[in-house]
């Protein structure tokens, strides 16, 4: 390993820790894939009323975010919804 690689490369230990943290958030939230699918479909239905979205490209997951208070990180629902057309449909 070269001198500069030491700064570039993250140890696999940190990778394991990051992956595990994400994994445990969804494990602890007890969110089944079926439940996530239901949430996803409902979101598509609601947003579709107002704009045209790319349902295929929609990505939702439960992650962690730093809370504004000082009680550390809290679970958060993250949704990335690509918009095709923002014009109102009506």
């Amino acid at each position, binding site marked *: 390993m070269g001198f500069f690689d030491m700064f570039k490369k993250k140890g696999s230990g940190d990778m394991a820790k990051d992956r*595990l943290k994400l*994994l445990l958030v969804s494990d602890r939230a007890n969110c089944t894939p079926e439940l996530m699918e239901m949430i996803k479909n409902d979101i598509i239905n609601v947003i579709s009323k107002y704009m045209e979205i790319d349902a295929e490209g929609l990505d939702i997951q439960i992650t962690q975010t730093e809370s504004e208070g000082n009680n550390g990180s809290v679970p958060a629902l993250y949704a990335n919804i690509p918009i095709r057309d923002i014009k109102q449909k009506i």
Partner: protein
Amino acid sequence: MSEVIVVTSGKGGVGKTTTSANVGTGLAKLDKRVVLIDTDIGLRNLDVVMGLENRIVYNLVDVIEGNCRMKQALIKDKRYPNLCLLPSAQTRDKSSVTPEQMKKLTEELREEYDYIILDCPAGIEQGFKNAIAGADRAIIVTTPEVSAIRDADRIIGLLEANELKRTDLIVNRIRMDMVKRGDMMSIADVVDILGIDLIGAVPDDESIVISTNQGEPLVGDDSLAGQAFMNICYRVMGEEVPWLDLSGKSSLWSKISDIFKKK
């Protein structure tokens, strides 16, 4: 006052049986009256790790079904007269025992022993439910790997739901050389993620393999793992023991070779 301790992990192969054997033997070394119970019905292992496989006549299921008295099924350890093993049945399955029966069995043993240590099977099904039924506290064994820690987290949740008084963590098979170069989660990382009290860390040590081959628990010998297990025994009894330096070899030669490796 006697205590019933279940050794559990969720994932298989992380060292539950080795931990049970060493903690049980260590507590016996410290003059406690100890009984080890192998609750893994159908896949019995603790007898082999203890080197007592040739002495089995009756087993756990025999006691529960009333085929024999408790005294007949308990095997006295070779080295410590105050240590006993209740082996599991090899030819039966987990549904032969219910949580209520296990509770009754551990209650009976409380009268004569200071520590009743239950070696729990892997998984979260019937065998796990049986093992935790009569327990006051739990020792969770994990290794610094994503899969083992994930399962441990699940187990901690299930134990909380069952209102055990106390759960402590053992981080097993840690390799300080890998932690140092950032390729393994540290003990602090694991404790931080799981959020329960650490009762000990055991290094990945060749002497564990050798001791298992011989059927002689290594607790209390001068190997690093042997010392780590002995410290865990003191902590189980509530004593405070300083943390062991697990990085091991600090001989002059290894220091010199470390200097050259750094290049």
